[in-house]
């Protein structure tokens, strides 16, 4: 598993260079790598069936309790198969879809980053690792939705998806950390194995709600569903891969993953069933009137995601239909998206009512479409049919009639969308200008649809996968008996027939629904001034939230970031003094007997101290900038001498260098600085002097306090002893920096780099803004 992640990491890093050489042919490389990974994961299934889940671990940050632990069980295995398998097909498809696009390198880097992150997300057994990969999928999705940054709507949609899923990610992080704190482990398998009787405790309830929010934003559940149709700004391979088959299922994955533990929670069933049912209905209702092919499929995906959440909410009984539908939907919806892209590529049109007569003018496209419709509508003998039967059977036996009704209505909407794909083949519309594309454009959707078809015929292959998934979702219960295509005449079959028929009728009279949708303003992305039902769109809540955020940011910036450096410094120093003094008093440090260590003071010390005091006075009182600078320089160098004298050569070197560079920087900035004048009144200066004195006194007092406390072992003793044997170095400071506390240093140099970029941005771009 680690090898698969490492391979994808290398490929991602190599992508920009390789793409500039291979151009669109890089897609074949990416497809081959994904295919190899697919083969590897497929080969793991016999082992999984025989020996149970496999775990691989690398001690990542053992001192923080986090390790890079990966775990492969049925659920993550199925997701891994989908990610790598559909990944390979999408890569092949991209060769034909994007052709020699100028921004190909950026596309591949982001897409491979996504594949890596998504694979890491489903394999992670450590919640911190899981969270990092979770966020990375969102970042990759941001770049891919905004792939055409020249379009304002693409930029806005990318930002929207990032903000919505990112906010949910924060909730997820809070939930995960709270959970880890409660149980005392970062290992997901430990967390899930904790005592179920405690699941209703207030803390775990909070964890459940937070995880649910995270999952709902990622998987586009109501009321966060609006970002998904807007994400259709992305190139079609991305829509097929991220926004239908894999990434949007991350939330569903998370819920399925934690269900062995949280399904015992008393809120689990009502919350998930309600959330799923509402989402399934809203998605279905909004899907049917859409005119744009991709928005049509996007809303139907929302409905399907709601169905999946609903099934999870039904608990153990629904784990079999959940597993089946998860697999079937990824296959047929991925195929449908890829097909929609192929239709757009072939005809140059994406509006459903403007494409027609494909049956006559593009026969191969038409045959592929029929195959995809077969899979997507869930006609026998496809996997979609089996999934639907299982779903309806479970619902009619175990769920309330209301829930079954919602499920059926959602399925009617989704099936209508599938039937609607037939319209471009037969309906009357101006004959399309057919543009023949690369073979991958049709091969990829056909392979996916054939897989959905074959899955229904070769159920003996699907059964072990489904039973492994249900085992993971239910926490070890083996519930799946053999699957069958034909269940005899029963309620499920009747409902299935009703769904197909109702959907066919809806699709037949689609023009009327589309016109109704136009009147209610449902068919276009939400405009600046919403009309019709758009007035009640959840997206308006998002906009209001962003406006409120901007207002708050403005308000607090006016107060805190007022642009006066002197105010910042005053606030920082005064706050430090208050906090340190308060905590020192609270810890009882002020009443300690301080033994003032009397060290002999010689001439050099005296001279240095006098120089330091004198130069600081000069710096404060100087009437010319150059004099003040010189005084500060003297101050710095005297301090450095003092450090060197008392056994801190590294500190002294750094002090000297920083002082030198400061002077160099000031020389460059010298001509830009304003007139060196006394601007503040005497009263202000006295107040500042007071603050400075108090701060100085506090620091001196603090230094003296150090002598009053005699710890059992001094940290310097440890480092002195450990530096050579453990870190192979005799310079203790350096061994701390590059070995003992190297992670801190890594963080610090990252901050240093960011600061440099910040300075660059301020100087280069701040200037233009001021003049305009």
């Amino acid at each position, binding site marked *: 598993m680690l090898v698969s992640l490492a391979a994808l990491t290398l490929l991602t890093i190599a992508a920009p260079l390789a793409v500039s050489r291979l151009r669109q042919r890089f897609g074949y490389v990416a497809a081959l790598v994904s295919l190899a990974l697919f083969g590897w994961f497929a080969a793991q299934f016999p082992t999984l069936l025989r020996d149970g889940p496999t775990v691989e671990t690398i001690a*990542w940050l053992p001192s923080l309790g986090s390790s890079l632990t990966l775990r492969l069980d049925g659920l993550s295995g199925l997701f891994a198969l989908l990610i790598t398998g559909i990944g390979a097909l999408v890569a092949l498809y991209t060769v034909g879809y994007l052709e020699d696009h100028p921004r190909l390198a950026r596309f591949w880097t982001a897409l491979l980053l996504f594949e890596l992150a998504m694979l890491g997300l489903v394999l992670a057994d450590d919640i911190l690792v899981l969270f990092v990969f979770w966020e990375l999928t969102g970042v990759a999705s941001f770049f891919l939705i905004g792939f055409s940054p020249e379009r304002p709507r693409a930029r806005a949609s990318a930002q929207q998806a990032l903000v919505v899923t990112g906010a949910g990610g924060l909730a997820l992080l809070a939930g995960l950390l709270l959970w880890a704190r409660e149980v005392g482990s970062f290992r997901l398998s430990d967390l899930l194995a904790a005592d179920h009787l405690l699941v209703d405790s207030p803390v775990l309830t909070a964890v459940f709600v937070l995880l649910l929010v995270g999952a709902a934003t990622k998987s586009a559940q109501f009321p966060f569903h609006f970002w998904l149709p807007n994400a259709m700004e992305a190139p079609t391979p991305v829509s097929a891969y991220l926004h239908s088959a894999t990434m949007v299922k991350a939330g569903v994955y998370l819920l399925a993953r934690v269900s062995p533990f949280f399904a015992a929670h008393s809120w689990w069933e009502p919350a998930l069933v309600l959330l799923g049912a509402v989402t399934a209905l809203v998605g279905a209702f909004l899907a049917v009137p859409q005119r744009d092919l991709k928005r049509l499929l996007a809303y139907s995906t929302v409905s399907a995601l709601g169905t999946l959440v609903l099934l999870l909410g039904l608990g153990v009984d629904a784990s079999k239909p959940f597993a089946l539908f998860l697999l079937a939907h990824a296959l047929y919806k991925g195929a449908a998206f890829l097909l929609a892209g192929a239709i757009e590529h072939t005809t140059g049109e994406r509006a459903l009512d403007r494409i027609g007569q494909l049956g006559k003018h593009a026969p191969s496209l038409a045959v592929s479409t029929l195959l995809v419709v077969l899979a997507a509508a869930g006609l026998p003998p496809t996997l979609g049919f089996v999934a639907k039967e299982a779903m309806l059977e479970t619902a009619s036996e175990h769920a309330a009639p209301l829930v079954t009704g919602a499920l059926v209505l959602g399925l009617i909407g989704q099936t209508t969308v599938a039937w609607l794909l037939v319209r471009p083949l037969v309906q009357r519309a101006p004959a399309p200008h057919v543009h023949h594309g690369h073979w991958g454009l049709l091969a990829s959707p056909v392979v996916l649809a054939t897989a959905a078809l074959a899955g229904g015929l070769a159920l003996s292959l699907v059964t072990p996968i489904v039973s492994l998934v249900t085992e993971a979702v239910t926490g070890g219960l083996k519930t799946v008996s053999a699957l069958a295509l034909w269940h005899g005449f029963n309620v499920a079959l009747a409902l299935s027939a009703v769904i197909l028929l109702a959907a066919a009728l809806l699709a037949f009279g689609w023009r009327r629904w589309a016109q109704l949708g136009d009147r209610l303003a449902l068919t276009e992305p939400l405009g600046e001034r919403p009309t019709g039902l758009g007035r009640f769109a959840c997206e308006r809540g998002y906009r209001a939230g962003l406006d409120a955020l901007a207002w708050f940011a403005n308000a607090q910036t006016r107060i805190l970031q007022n642009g006066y450096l002197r105010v910042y410094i005053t606030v920082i120093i005064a706050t430090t003094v208050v906090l340190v003094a308060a905590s020192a008093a609270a810890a009882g440090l002020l009443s300690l007997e301080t033994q003032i260590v009397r060290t002999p003071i010689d001439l050099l010390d005296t001279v240095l101290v006098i120089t330091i005091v004198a130069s600081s006075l000069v710096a404060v009182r100087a009437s010319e900038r150059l004099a003040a600078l010189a005084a500060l320089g003297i101050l710095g160098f005297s301090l450095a001498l003092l450090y060197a004298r008392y056994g801190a050569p590294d500190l002294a070197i*750094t002090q000297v260098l920083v002082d030198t560079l400061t002077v160099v920087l000031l020389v460059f900035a010298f001509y830009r600085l304003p007139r060196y004048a006394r601007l503040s009144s005497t009263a202000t200066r006295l107040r500042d002097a007071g603050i400075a004195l108090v701060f100085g006194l506090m620091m001196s007092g603090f230094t003296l306090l150090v002598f009053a406390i005699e710890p059992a072992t001094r940290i310097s003793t440890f480092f002195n002893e450990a530096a050579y044997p453990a*870190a*192979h170095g005799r310079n203790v400071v350096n061994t701390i920096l590059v070995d003992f506390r190297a992670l801190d240093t*890594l963080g610090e140099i990252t901050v240093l*780099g960011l600061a440099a970029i910040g300075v660059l941005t301020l100087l280069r771009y701040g200037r233009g803004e001021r003049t305009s």
Partner: protein
Amino acid sequence: MSTLPSLILRTAVRWIAPLLLLFSLFLLLRGHNEPGGGFSGGLIAATGFALFTFGYSLETARRLLRVPPSTLVAVGIGVAFASGLVSLVRGEPLLTGVWFTLPLPGETSLELGTPLLFDVGVYLTVIGAALTMLFAFAEE
């Protein structure tokens, strides 16, 4: 800077700046056992390039550096992080020092380890960050 830098400064820079760069490498390499290290080495090297900016021009300094300073920042952080990944291959935690001894002719041997690589990363990042700021200030 609009005025022509003085001849004395230019001549001095030609001699001092290369020495500073050599000295910065010296500090970097000795850092593990004696005072020095990537941070101070990086600052010295940045000073060397700053001198060129004084004595000649910003363009000269940029040309001598060959790569944009912000690239150095990225490469530096990358090298430092990559040095931490080496230990993962041996199944040890991130950023654990991995050492090996290089036998040299005679009685001596040289100990090399990933912390040195890490320090090189720090060195590059510091040069890059300092020069990014410096060049931005010098640009006018």
